[in-house]
């Protein structure tokens, strides 16, 4: 495995049903205030479930992506010439015009151009972040990762048909009585930058991406391996790259969607990868407040992980009714926990048994 160079996170831009920008995301995540409500964006009268986390008065996905990219560039203080040397990695739902969409987005933001488009369902954005770190390790000064999903009628109908949506209207990750997931808007942008390049322009990243890992379950088209084998190996790889032991971790932002099989598999993965630490590292899934942002979920959740570390407080796991024996974890309930360690994992899993782990450090 090649030597890992320090990669900083120097710019954020974000939108979800919790609001626009970082402050409303963090406030709702810390208080566990969920944003689910009746869907009014399209007709759901024929669906089993009619709830999602959608932001009122949202523009097109292209415009919202352009907005969060601008937020991230401004947050990072990039000049026009620095933007012009920064490639874009985009995570969106796969469609024939994705290439043109990515090119227009890069052009609007004055970026160097679209380098990759990730369409691998719910690990799209986190895969892009891992690749961004690799490109920086290869010598790029900085890479901008953007991802977007706005709740729309087709995916909603598919998730409804697959009986994946929470029939009680609440997302309850790791909880007894959980009934499924709910979809949510997620549009985010993150600027990753080599620490040397950041220092050269007078910036010191508040958060580092220390490690990442990717592995597959080799188990089933849509069900996770019950033992969480692929996710466990992704976590182990992220820890190995970061040079950390499980005991160092202070928080896990879980993939947990609120579905029976997936949450139990994630708990099993954590037990395999972290051993006894799995039962005492604070964990929560912020999907309980912002919903499942599909291709963009990994980036929104990374942003919330970063914001939480910077704030010194860990988000609660909203919707929790009580412990499930298949998820013996230290779930954060009631009120936010203080950050006790600067190291946190953000986990994501997808159909096809795809798994990712991103490990960040508050600098």
């Amino acid at each position: 495995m090649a030597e890992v160079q320090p990669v900083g996170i120097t710019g954020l831009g974000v939108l979800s049903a919790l609001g626009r920008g970082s402050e409303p995301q963090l406030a709702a995540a810390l208080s566990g205030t969920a944003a689910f409500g009746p869907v009014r964006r399209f007709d759901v009268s024929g669906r089993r479930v009619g709830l999602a986390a959608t932001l009122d008065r949202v523009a097109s996905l292209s415009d919202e992506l352009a907005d969060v990219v601008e937020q991230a560039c401004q947050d990072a203080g990039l000049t026009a010439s620095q933007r012009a040397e920064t490639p874009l990695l985009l995570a969106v739902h796969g469609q024939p015009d994705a290439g043109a969409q990515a090119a227009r987005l890069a052009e609007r933001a004055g970026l160097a151009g679209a380098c990759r488009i990730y369409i691998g369902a719910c690990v799209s954005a986190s895969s892009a972040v891992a690749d961004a770190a690799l490109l920086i390790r290869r010598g790029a000064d900085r890479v901008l990762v953007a991802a977007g999903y706005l709740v729309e009628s087709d995916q909603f109908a598919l998730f409804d048909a697959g009986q994946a949506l929470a029939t009680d209207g609440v997302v309850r990750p790791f909880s007894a009585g959980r009934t499924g997931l709910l979809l949510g808007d997620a549009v985010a942008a993150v600027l990753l930058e080599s620490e040397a390049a950041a220092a050269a322009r007078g910036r010191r990243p508040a958060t580092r991406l220390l490690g990442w890992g990717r592995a597959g379950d080799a188990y089933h088209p849509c069900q996770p391996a019950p033992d969480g084998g692929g996710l466990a190996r992704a976590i182990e790889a992220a820890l190995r790259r970061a040079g950390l032991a499980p005991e160092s971790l202070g928080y896990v932002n879980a993939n947990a969607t609120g579905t029976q099989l997936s949450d139990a598999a994630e708990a099993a993965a954590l037990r395999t990868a972290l051993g006894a630490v799995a039962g005492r590292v604070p964990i929560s899934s912020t999907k309980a407040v912002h919903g499942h942002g599909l291709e963009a979920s990994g980036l929104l959740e990374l942003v919330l992980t970063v914001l939480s570390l910077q704030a010194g407080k860990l988000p609660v796991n909203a919707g929790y009714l009580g412990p499930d024996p298949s998820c013996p974890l230290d779930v954060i309930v009631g009120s936010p926990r203080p950050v006790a360690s600067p190291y946190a994992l953000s986990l994501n899993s997808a159909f096809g048994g795809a798994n990712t782990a991103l490990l960040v450090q508050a600098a």
Partner: protein
Amino acid sequence: MSATATTSGRLAVLAEYRWPEQPARELPVLPGYVLSSFSPLVAAAAEGCLAGRPADPAVLERTAVLLVTAGNDAVSADHVRDRVAAGRRLGPLLFFQIAPNSVVGQLTARWGLAGPVVALSPVGDPLADGLAEAELLLEDGDAEQVLLILVEQADSAVPDSIDRAHALLLTERPIS
């Protein structure tokens, strides 16, 4: 375009397969997948590339699958869009097959491939994009082989357009 013409010299092609085959044959049915040729094409490409090769479980466990497609599963997507627009219900199988990762889960289970799973829409030449990403995955170290599958369904707007798939099993070329 051949793979060897586009690699930077850092990749070795261990196996390669193209659909349609010559002589032509019917695309094998993939149980559980309906309406669309997309997932059967991906599965057939993997089968054609991997069948008959010596199988070292330790290597297969560190084999990534990289899917590259511009059109994605357009047939399934069009079907869903039409039914939703008409206010009609969808079959549950569509939920499982609509994500491009789904069929990758089928083939990784079939072949024991437990490395990273990545799906891309190309920004340029699909093969060049796929080879560049394969290099990155191998360099990263979580995989020692990459099964790259490029797939595009026939475009109904283009005369004589046909379903196509191209699979390559790739590894890092030893440093001489």
